[in-house]
């Protein structure tokens, strides 16, 4: 056995057994963050806090929710909303956080694209981040099934039908996923399991990978400057705090991070208390009915852009382009052939235009996805969907011609 001495304090007792001091240095006080950043660098912490809110509110909902087709709707809309003290709070926190988390994810993503934070050495951060996006999407979808209202049922019907692969007619696969010919008890049971256990486990694992992937390349900075972290850390520890380009993760960076989190939480709880309606579709307050489709079926706002890429085409082409849209962001580090790691606006006109056009095009796709597919909206949707695909195909060409800045 290793040699232990009589502890001089609780901290020393823990330190001898868990190396807490070393741990604190590695994870916090000597984990170095560049100084040249702005508030957009706080989105990671905002996401961590939002995820924590989802977990805590989810735990309380889980205690009263009943995952059967007969009881699910009432357990949410009656038991949790009317009987459980503060049940409404957990539900509204959960619903609002599920929606807002995607807003922050999109900001986080486009910040990464803008500053080139996926480039050489940081590919794994980007890839693990996109895997998190996929996991969060699956988590949002499976959670949307649970209140067993009309939107739950019909979204479940439409999304599981995607797996028939259009002309492949893989109806056996769809029935296997559902465990029935239509969404029913087997379907609700397995999506309940996925939502409260398997996908959250995957998300926690991926968050670990995401943080791990950040460790060696470190956080990017506003100029994409390559920093010698060892040299800058030494300068800092030797006392030249002002001259060093880096600061401690805790408490230096954390204090500013939590300031942003504080502002965010005020906004978040304003939504929870006064404006939660956007996260609660009125159609989902009708119990699921397999014999009546609601007049308009549309996904939550964060899926609208990819839904709009599916919509204007026949089913096979639609599914192919939809699949393309789902995976193409993962490939970004390999499709961007430019040697430059810096802000999009400084990389020359072609990429600058590409970035802002991609961002606006996704907003247009989102808006068109919400509108009925008629007349001029159909046309705009079609043009935007084609533009989305063409821009991704053009990305390797325009970036490989980019000059080194």
């Amino acid at each position, binding site marked *: 056995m290793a040699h232990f001495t009589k502890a001089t304090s609780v901290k020393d007792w823990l330190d001898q057994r868990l190396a807490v001091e070393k741990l604190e240095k590695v994870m916090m006080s000597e984990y170095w963050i560049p100084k040249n950043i702005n508030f957009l660098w706080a989105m990671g912490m905002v996401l961590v806090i939002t995820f924590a809110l989802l977990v805590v509110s989810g735990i309380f909902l889980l205690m009263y929710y009943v995952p059967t087709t007969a009881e699910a709707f009432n357990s949410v809309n009656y038991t949790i909303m009317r009987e459980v003290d503060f049940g409404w709070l957990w539900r509204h926190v959960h619903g609002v956080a599920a929606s807002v988390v995607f807003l922050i994810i999109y900001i986080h993503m486009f910040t990464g694209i803008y500053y080139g934070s996926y480039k050489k050495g940081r590919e794994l951060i980007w890839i693990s981040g996109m895997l998190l996006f996929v996991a969060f999407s699956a988590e949002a979808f499976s959670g949307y099934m649970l209140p067993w209202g009309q939107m739950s049922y019909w979204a479940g019907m*439409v999304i599981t039908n995607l797996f028939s692969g259009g002309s492949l007619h893989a109806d056996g696969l769809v029935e*296997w996923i559902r*465990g029935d*010919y239509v969404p029913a008890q*087997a379907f609700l049971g*397995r999506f309940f399991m996925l939502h409260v256990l398997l996908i959250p486990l995957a998300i926690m694992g991926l968050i670990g990978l995401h943080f791990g992937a950040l460790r060696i390349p470190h956080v990017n900075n506003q100029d994409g400057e390559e920093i010698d972290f060892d040299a800058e850390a030494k300068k800092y520890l030797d006392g030249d705090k002002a001259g060093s380009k880096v600061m401690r993760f805790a408490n230096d960076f954390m204090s500013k991070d939590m300031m942003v989190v504080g502002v965010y939480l005020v906004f978040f709880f304003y939504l929870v208390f006064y404006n939660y309606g956007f996260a609660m579709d009125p159609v989902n307050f009708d119990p699921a009915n*397999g014999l009546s489709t609601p007049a308009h079926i549309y996904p939550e706002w964060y899926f609208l852009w990819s839904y709009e890429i599916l919509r204007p085409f026949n089913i096979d082409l639609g599914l192919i382009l939809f699949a393309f849209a789902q995976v193409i962001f993962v490939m970004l580090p390999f499709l961007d052939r430019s040697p430059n790691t810096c802000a999009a606006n400084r990389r020359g006109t072609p990429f600058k235009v590409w970035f802002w056009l991609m961002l606006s095009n996704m907003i247009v796709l989102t808006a068109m996805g919400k509108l009925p597919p008629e007349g001029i909206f159909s046309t705009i949707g079609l043009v935007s969907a084609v533009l989305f695909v063409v821009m991704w195909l053009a990305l390797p060409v325009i970036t490989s011609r980019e000059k080194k800045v």
Partner: protein
Amino acid sequence: MKENSRRGFMGKAFGAVAGVGAVASLYAMKKSWDPLPSVKAAGFTTLDMSVYQENVMVTEKWRGKPIFVLRKSADILAKEKGNAEAEARDIKIGDYHYMIAIGLCTHLGCIPAFRKDSNDFLCACHGGQFDASGLVTKVPPPRGFDIPPFKIDGNKLVLGEVGPEWQAMKDNSVTL
């Protein structure tokens, strides 16, 4: 060296045992997600065809899915005349002609609504349209309504059982 080869053997032996176990458990996991026997057994519905009135679209239920039943009027039949695709889908029971189909859009499975004035179906999800014979008149749906397996038994129709009329439709690719 001797140590190494012994370790190598142990590694391979473990790999073999674990491989068999992994394949076997994947098989069990796959089967556990299959539809239950009780779900499969509840898959038959019998319709009494004498109750349907001309030009009134009725939605029945089979395996949890809506089934459209429309007794065709002379108008619809006149329109279908000469259209081989529409005639192939026609189901004659007793003296009447019917459109019988699974009432789910073949695009992504929403239930299209019947429009009485124009005698056709409109799907709200993605704007697909079907005529009174069940054929597509506006994409995205890739094909007409699917026709459920059926067997004609006098004036009754058994859904879920395969009769010669349905088998012929399937063989001729009228339905899936």
